[in-house]
């Protein structure tokens, strides 16, 4: 027995030794930089898979243009089916087997929640997550994790601010999906209303397994609310828009920007039913005729035509991928050839007023060691019945 134990111990030590020796610049060789990612390519959330394809195409373009720091980018992306245990499995595969330098643009709040502690313990940079949960900006507890898009909480703060300006004595109805995503809106509205929250707001929730949300809408209307904030995924957003219209309720309606796709929400709900709905944006909308001659969009279309000839050019997922990957390229160039994990995190936390081509004019990417919310600004927009019309200035979320 002692022999076996000793043998096992020795073999463990043998296995561990080379790992330590190479730990300095994991995932980086003289010619290659390895980046890891997971996405729901299968299952109900697989519509988001286009983001992964967009990222991959973008890095291919970068490689054709000479890569970064003299190295080619090797982007490895696996399917996690939007299931947290599989996200853990794929993350360990990327970190331990493929030995990537860092994780990038991993999608989904529950999926990233499952791995956030693992990557922070291992000190693997976990960059620009494709989810809007507010907790990815927590630089104190999870210093290796950083989000990218404006958080749902910031978005809700912006709505609440606008609402107070327009209707200081509003009676608010809040409908949210009963999960991380939905609750961030609740928190954001609370941030702004403070002690007045309880007297001003009635909350209703729904589950993704609910067939309809009719009952919730009817209940909320019964409270006499004149403002409705809807934090719902596309299917339920479309149902809400239609039901609110059909029962003749005309509140000031704020809608989560998760569900503003013209093709997947507004048209199925009935374009005329949604007139007047307010939401927010931080990226240029592919379908907005205002950008038809935008030079950056022309570049983007050229990129799509060359690298993603089958890609649907009205899918905003490809715009997200393009913008986020452009942000990453800024970071990698700033690294100046030093791709150690520590330096990558240093540079990620040191982005100053970066302009990204397909973000709305005036919105800039900013990070610092105490700011892990790269994009904090948005602009409000209103549904005209045909497209979204932006109005007002770029607004920043409350500082809380």
């Amino acid at each position, binding site marked *: 027995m002692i022999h*076996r*134990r*000793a*043998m*096992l*111990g020795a*073999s*463990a*030590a043998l*296995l*561990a030794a080379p790992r330590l020796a190479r730990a300095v610049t994991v995932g980086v060789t003289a010619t290659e930089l390895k980046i890891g990612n997971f996405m729901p*390519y*299968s*299952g109900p959330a*697989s519509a988001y898979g286009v983001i992964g394809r967009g990222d991959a195409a973008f890095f291919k373009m970068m490689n054709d243009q000479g890569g970064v720091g003299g190295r080619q980018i090797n982007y490895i992306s*696996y*399917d996690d*089916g*939007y*299931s*947290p*245990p*599989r996200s*853990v*499995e794929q993350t*360990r*595969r990327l*970190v*331990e*087997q493929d030995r990537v330098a860092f994780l990038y643009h991993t999608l989904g709040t*529950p999926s990233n*929640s*499952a791995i956030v*502690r*693992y990557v922070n313990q291992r000190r693997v940079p976990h960059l620009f997550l494709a989810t809007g949960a507010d907790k990815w900006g927590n630089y104190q507890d999870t210093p290796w994790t950083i989000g990218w898009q404006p958080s749902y909480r910031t978005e809700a703060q912006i709505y609440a601010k606008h609402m107070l300006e327009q209707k200081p004595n509003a009676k608010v109805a809040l409908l949210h999906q*009963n*999960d*991380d995503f939905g*609750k961030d809106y609740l928190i954001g509205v609370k941030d702004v209303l403070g002690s007045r929250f309880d007297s001003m707001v009635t909350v209703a929730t729904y*589950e993704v*397994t609910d067939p309809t949300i009719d009952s919730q809408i009817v209940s909320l209307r019964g409270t006499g609310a004149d403002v409705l904030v809807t934090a719902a995924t596309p299917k339920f957003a479309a149902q809400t828009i239609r039901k609110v219209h059909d029962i003749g309720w005309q509140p000031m309606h704020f809608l989560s920007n998760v569900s503003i796709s013209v093709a997947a929400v507004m048209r199925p709900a009935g374009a005329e039913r949604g007139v007047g709905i307010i939401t927010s944006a931080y990226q240029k909308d592919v379908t907005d005729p205002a950008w038809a001659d935008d030079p950056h969009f022309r570049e983007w279309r050229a990129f799509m035509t060359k690298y993603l000839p089958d890609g649907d050019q009205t899918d905003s997922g490809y715009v997200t991928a393009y913008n986020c990957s452009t942000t990453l390229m800024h970071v990698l160039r700033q690294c100046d050839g030093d791709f150690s994990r520590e330096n990558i995190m240093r540079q990620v936390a040191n982005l100053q007023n970066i302009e990204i081509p397909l973000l709305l004019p005036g919105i800039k990417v900013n990070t610092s060691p105490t700011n892990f919310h790269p994009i904090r600004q948005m602009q409000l927009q209103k549904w005209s019945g045909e497209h979204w019309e932006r109005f007002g200035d770029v607004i920043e979320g409350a500082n809380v």
Partner: protein
Amino acid sequence: MSTSQNPLAATLAPVATPARDGVMLRILIVLGGFVAIAAVPIAFASSYQLFQLTLAATYAIAILGLNIVTGFNGQISLGHGAFYAVGAYTTAILMTHFDVPYWATLPIAAAICGVIGFGIGFPALRLGGLYLALTTFAVAVAVPQILKYKGVEDWTGGVQGTFLVKPDAPEFTGLDNDQYLYLFVLVIAALLFLMAANLLHSRIGRAMRSIRDNPIAAEAMGMDIARIKTRTFALSAAITGLAGALSAIAVEFVAPDSFSVELSINLFVGMVVGGVGSIVGPIFGGLFVVFVPNLAESIARAAPGVIYGVILILFLYLLPQGFAGFPRRIGALLRQRSQG
């Protein structure tokens, strides 16, 4: 045993009682096999591969639990993911809120699931067959919703889920954490499989199977069907709950979304593919559940689920005894050929 109309029951062709010295040999083979299964991956596999094998072992245990109640006792459950979830959450809550050491949470998780299983066993008695399948399927769909419930949020962590800390390997073993956890899970799996094998070859095991194959005859022979069925359900739930507890330790995270209806379906598919009513079947089932999705992904990225479903149906037609029945099937074919 009566002539059964159940092709899946055929798995249980009575095993010839081996002679005494045969038993010794068997024990040696099993022991040797165990040492090989334990030592080879620990010596050669990467920590990621060990993690996968650890997961496969926990799924194998869960499927063993399911197989006991469904395969051996004929009570169809499509909701065993619920017990898996209860086990996982028990461990997570005990470890994070009460600082109970990981190993001490396991018997508690098993006990809680056992009690719940016993409780569910009673209505299950009256349901039987399709209705039980249906009700447990409904349970599987409702699990995430119940886990998110506000009233228990302080304990469960609500929609956000809860992290737990993976145990450190004891100093004297000289193993790293992944190697240790693999060994730990493997030892528990081995114990449970041995226990199940013993039980199923005992008087109680025969009673369980006779109730599945011919309940009326079993009752006529004086068996207390209700007692055996409810206890089988409790045992099955306890084993699956234990697997859930182990998985929580291995994955270091529990959240409602981890226990969707897909989990229960996976356990069911694993059972069928491994071998319904087979002791070793769940081992294949566990490996299948962990490794086939990655394989399916490389074949058809868009729809690994289609492949999964097709495999399930093919197995039911072509190999109703699952992987476990494979050697026997080949043996039978060869014998036919040599005779014919």
